[in-house]
């Protein structure tokens, strides 16, 4: 019983961490699943989202003009809500610009797309350095979701619960969008057989543009939500792109619930090893990947990979 009581907080922590990993991986999964592009710019778009949110939340750092005094006077909670909407929209536009450049690589060796997004990641990261400098920033939070709370004798950050609940909401919204709307049906069809989609008169270029923009916006949402945990610095996206890639491979490329399940597994594994074998905590996620892929090369729920010819 004592052991279980000791274990429970770490399980809760692992699940919440898994939900946050899922949030990070959603945009990556969408772009890879539909467009067959491994978007290495995902991390930079994640970081860009955090920077835009910082400007929107701490106007002194960004919108300093007296023209925006009315905005600065708004309550922090309202600005935070706006940041969760506006920052992803702005990053979505950046994502569209990246997709325009990416078009030249469609139908060619996947390596071209990989290299292009790698280049885009470097450009975005260096642009961040030029615009905001190399220093670190902290994302301010509304009082309602900052600070600590006592649960079962343990102190937790309120924001962690908020972020986990927000991640559940985003997972549900994305699932509804993909599974329950005509747009989602077109996206899925595009992932399955793009030629047929084109033959049916659907503008495939526009579809890809919107999917990439949506993937970029999801990366930005993750950046905004994770910023209070990880801080904001130009290279913070590197911390996001590696687990995102790992989760998609573990869950199975193209599988929505595979990615969510893989995220939870990774979160619980990292959380438990952090508590009981701390030096293994980061390595454990890679060991999990090796263990799963050794027995099932396509990941937990992967069908025939879109990367396979």
């Amino acid at each position: 019983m004592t052991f279980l009581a000791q274990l429970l907080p770490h399980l809760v922590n692992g699940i919440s961490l898994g939900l946050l990993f899922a949030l990070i991986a959603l945009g990556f999964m969408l772009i890879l699943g539909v467009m067959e592009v491994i978007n290495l710019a995902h991390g930079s778009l994640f970081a860009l989202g955090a920077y835009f949110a910082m400007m929107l939340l701490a106007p002194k750092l960004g919108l300093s003009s007296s023209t925006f005094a009315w905005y600065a006077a708004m309550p922090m909670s309202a600005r935070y809500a706006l940041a969760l909407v506006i920052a992803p929209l702005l990053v979505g536009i950046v994502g569209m610009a990246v997709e325009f450049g990416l078009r030249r690589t469609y139908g060619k060796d996947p390596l071209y797309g990989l290299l292009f997004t790698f280049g885009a990641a470097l450009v975005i990261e260096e642009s961040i350095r030029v615009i905001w400098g190399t220093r670190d920033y902290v994302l301010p939070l509304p009082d309602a979701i900052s600070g600590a709370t006592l649960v079962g004798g343990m102190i937790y950050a309120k924001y962690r619960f908020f972020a986990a609940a927000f991640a559940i909401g985003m997972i549900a919204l994305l699932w509804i969008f993909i599974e329950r709307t005509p747009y989602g049906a077109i996206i899925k069809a595009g992932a399955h057989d793009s030629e047929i989609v084109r033959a049916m008169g659907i503008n495939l270029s526009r579809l890809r543009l919107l999917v990439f923009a949506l993937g970029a916006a999801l990366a930005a949402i993750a950046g905004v939500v994770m910023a209070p945990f990880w801080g904001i610095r130009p290279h913070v996206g590197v911390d996001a792109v590696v687990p995102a890639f790992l989760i998609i491979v573990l869950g199975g490329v193209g599988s929505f619930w595979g990615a969510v399940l893989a995220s939870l597994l990774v979160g619980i594994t990292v959380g438990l090893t952090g508590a009981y074998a701390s030096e293994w905590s980061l390595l454990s996620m890679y060991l999990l990947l090796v263990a799963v892929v050794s027995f099932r090369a396509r990941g937990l729920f992967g069908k025939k990979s879109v990367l396979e010819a």
Partner: protein
Amino acid sequence: MSNLSSRRRALKAAAAGTGLAFFGPFRHISYAQGKKPIKLGLTCDASGQYGDSGQDDMRGMVMAIDEFNAKGGVLGRQIVWITQDTETTPATGSRVAERFITREECGFLVGALHSGVANAISQVAQKYGCIYFNSNSSSPTEAGKDCHRTKFVWDGNGTNFSKAIVKNAIAGVGKNWLLLTNDYVWGHNTSKAARAEIEANGGKVVEELLVPQNTRDFTAYLLKIQQLKPDVVAAAIGGDDIKALRTQVSQLKLDTKPAWINNQQDWPDVWGQGADSLFGVFGTNWYHKLKLPGVDDFVRRYQVRWKDAPIPVPGNVSYNGYMCTRELLRAIERAGTTNNIAVIKQLEQIKVSAVDRMQNYDAYMNPATHHLQQTIYMARRNDKPVDKTDLFEIVSWTKPEDALDSREDDLACKLETYESTPTYEL
């Protein structure tokens, strides 16, 4: 065929032109003064865990070089420098050092934050006899088992900081300690030094949690700390990891209980996060608001030189970069030659007055370990700052002799002989 030939000629001409454009001014300076410049290789991280700190380190070095060049250089020779990102990665550090020595003909290497990188660079440097300054990496092993005849270590190390604080903390706070250790050489050795001090003073280490490098989520560790209920957490976490830890500890309001002792807080790690996430007691070897002669002038010179620096004032990292580069150039001047053995002998005898170093006590180079012994400061968050840069309150300062690393790590240092160290003169 003729097309190919003319294209080759054009390429050769372009290459020659590029070469002239690139090397021309450099040679011009050299011949104009009749002497070849002294070339320094600045081995600074620009990315990875210590990317920000590496660049801060470099600002101090460049400032010292500029000041010497403004006075006419050293031995009548200009000082030139090159740098390359060592990526907070030992393998890259090793590669950069090899290139700087063998291809760029750097006579001296300066710079490191990460102990693994410093150790890798120093092995290459020793192979060629190249003098290397570890400016900011503070694992006790750097001047212990990994010491070299050609390496000089300039920052206070984990043992220095532990000696300066552990005894008082056991008496004042409690005996049960938890060690939170970055899982690499600096973290291990710093915690090892802390453990030795804790046990020597009647304390007890209830647990040591190893934190892998690049950990961003510390919740599991913070839950474990709550379950174990130590009196004191002694953290040896650095770079971006400590930034994430500080943010998360502040969010949980765990910053006052248990008590936190952060072995050393590098200024670039603190800056940008604000005072709110600064907690516990921590060590440093310099602060820009020390009430000592020369400090204000140094800060002013730094601000003139680095108008657009991401950090508006120098901290311990840029201070160490500046001080070690200055002492290197002074040693060459005193030696009257760039002969490495002659310069090493000068460096081994260094004594710097407190005024000259802008610290409270005189500093000296330990000739047996090549580790600079200096004043160690303990600090905490400043609740009454005079301006936005005034983040620290210095609570005590310890004499070099009282913080001296005098146990096994010192004894573990076996410097190579002069005879076995390759000699060069540039």
